[in-house]
C-alpha cells in the first residue's frame, strides 16, 4: 500500500469493550493490524519513551496516539502533559478519544496541546464512523512530522 514502513497507531485504553469496539471500527478501514494497545497511562509512557517492558521496541514513533482520559495509574491528561513537554515527542499527533464531554477536560486537553478531541458517540454506527475516519485521517491522510526511526529514542 505504501512504500514507507507502516507507522503504528497507539491506542491507550483500559476498557476491553472499548478496545474491541475501536479495533472493530479500525478494521473497517483495514487499520486494525497496525494498532498497538496499552491498558493504562503508565504503560503508554513506557511505550512512548521506550523504557520498562517497551525498552526494546523499535525506534519508530506511532503515526498517532489515541488516548483515553480516564485510565488507571496515570490518566490520559498526564500522559499528554509529559508527551508535550518532551522536545522530541511533542510533535507526535495525539487525539483524545473519550466518553467525557466535560468542559474542564476539553480546556485542559487543548491547553496541553492536544491535536484533536473526540467524544465517543453512544450510537454504534456513529462510533464506527468516527473512529474509522479518525484512524484513516491520522494514519494515512495526514503527513506526520519528520521524525523517522530515531525520534523519541534514548529518553529516560
Amino acid at each position, binding site marked *: 500500500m505504501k512504500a514507507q514502513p507502516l507507522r503504528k497507531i497507539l491506542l491507550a485504553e483500559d*476498557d476491553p*469493550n*472499548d478496545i474491541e*469496539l475501536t479495533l*472493530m471500527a479500525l478494521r473497517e478501514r483495514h487499520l486494525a493490524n497496525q494498532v498497538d494497545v496499552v491498558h493504562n497511562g503508565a504503560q503508554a509512557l513506557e511505550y512512548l519513551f521506550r523504557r520498562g517492558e517497551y525498552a526494546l521496541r523499535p525506534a519508530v514513533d506511532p503515526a498517532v496516539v489515541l488516548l483515553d*482520559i*480516564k485510565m488507571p495509574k496515570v490518566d490520559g491528561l498526564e500522559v499528554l502533559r509529559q508527551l508535550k513537554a518532551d522536545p522530541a515527542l511533542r510533535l507526535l499527533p495525539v487525539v483524545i478519544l*473519550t*466518553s*467525557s*464531554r*466535560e*468542559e474542564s477536560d476539553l480546556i485542559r486537553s487543548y491547553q496541553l496541546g492536544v491535536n484533536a478531541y473526540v467524544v*465517543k*458517540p*453512544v*450510537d*454504534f*454506527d456513529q*462510533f464506527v464512523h468516527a473512529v474509522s475516519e479518525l484512524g484513516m485521517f491520522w494514519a494515512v491522510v495526514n503527513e506526520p512530522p519528520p521524525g523517522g526511526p530515531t525520534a523519541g529514542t534514548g529518553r529516560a
Partner: protein
Amino acid sequence: MAVVYWIGRVALESNRRLATQRGIIQLLQSVDSSLKDAESAQRGYLLTAEPVYLAPYDKALRDLTPELAALDAAANQGDLADPEIKQLKRLITDKLQELDRTIKLQRAGDTEGALAVVRSNRGKDLTDAITSNLAGLQAIEVAEFDLANRRADRATRERNAAFFASACLDLVFLAWAYRRISREINWRAVAQEELRKSHGRLEERVSERTAALAAANRDLESSNAQLAAANKELEAFGYSVSHDLRAPLRHVSSYIKLLEKNIGPSLDPVNLRMVRTISEAARRMGSLIDDLLVLSRIGRAALAETNVNLMELAEEARKELASETTGRAINWEIGPLPQVRGDQALLRSAVVNLLSNAIKYTRHRNPAQIELGSRRENGDVVCFVRDNGAGFDMQYADKLFGVFQRLHDPGDFEGTGIGLASVRRIIQRHGGKTWAEGQVDRGAAFYFSLPNERLL
C-alpha cells in the same frame, strides 16, 4: 435681704433721731439753766451791788450765745417747730434786755430804778413765759423722744425678728440646698453605678453577640465547606455520569447493534423487535444523560455577559429550527424585543427551547400561530412565546418547569422533559422568573422576565 437691709436702715434712722431728740432736750435744759443762772446773778447784784455777782452773769450770757445758735440750727433742720423757737427767742431776747437794763441801772448807782423794773413784774412774767415755753418744748421733745424710743425699740425688734427670720430662711435654704445636693450626689452615684452596670451588661452582651457571631461564622464556614464539598461531589457526579455511565451505555448500544447485524436476518419479528427496543432504550438514555449534563452545566458555568439583541437572537433561533418547520404552515409574529445584558449562548438556548416547544405543540394546527413578544412590567422586561397549540391544564402549570416533567404522552409529543427546566435555570441565572399560562387545546403562553438592570 432687701427687707433686712431696709429694716436695718429704719433702725439706724430711729437711733439717729433718738440721739438728736436727746440732744435737743439737753439743749433746752441748758438754756433754761443758763437763763436761771443769769437771773439769779442779776438778783444777787441788784440786792447786794456786789460786782462778784457779775462774773456768773457774764458766764451765763456767754453760755447762752452758742445755745441759742444751736436752737436756731435745730429749728432750721426741722428738729424743732420754728414758730415756737421764734417765740422763745423773742422772749429770751426781751428777758436778756430786761436783765441788761437792770444791771446797767445798778451799775450807774440807780438801785431804786433797777429794783423798780424788777418790781414791775415784767421780768417775772418773761421768766414764767420762758419757763412755760421751755417746758412745753421739753414736753414735746420728751414725748417725741419716747415715741422715737419706742419706734427704735420696735425697729430693733423688727430688725432682730427680720434677722431671725432671715437666719431661719437661710437655714431652711441651706437645709434644702443640702438635701438637694446630697440627693444630687446620691443620684449621681446611683446613676454612675447604673451606668457602670449597664456598661458591664453591654460588654457582656457584646461579647455574647461576638461569641454568637463567631459561632455563626464557624457554622457558616462549615456550611460553606459542606457546600463546596457538595458542589465538588456534584461535579464528580456530573463527571461520573458523563464518563462512567456513558461508557457502559455505549457498550450496550454498540453490542446490541452488532448482535442485530450478525443475527438480525435470522430473527423472527418478535425477537427482532425486542433487540430494537433495547437499542432504542439505550439511545434514549444516552440523550437523557446528555440533557442532564447540559442542565448541570447551565447551573455551574459562569455567565459570559455581553450585550444581547433579543430581536437578532430570535431570528437566529428561528433559522436554527428551520428543519423542524419544513412542510408546516406557521404564522410567525416576532417582536418588538429589547436589547439586554446577558449570556448570549444561554439566552439563545432558552429562546430556542421555547420556540421549539411552540413548534412541537402546534403540530396539529394549520396554520399554527407562534408569537414572540415583550412588554414592560414594573420596570422588568417580560418576554413571552404564545402559540395556538395543544396547551395544558393549568393545574399542572407548576410541574411544567420541573426536570423530566412531561404533561403529554411521549407517543404524542417526543422529548426528554428537560427543555423548560433548562429555560428556568437559564432565566434564574439572569435574575429573572419563568411562568406559563395555558388551556387544553387552546394554546399556551410561556413567560420569562429579566430584571430592569439588564435592560439596555
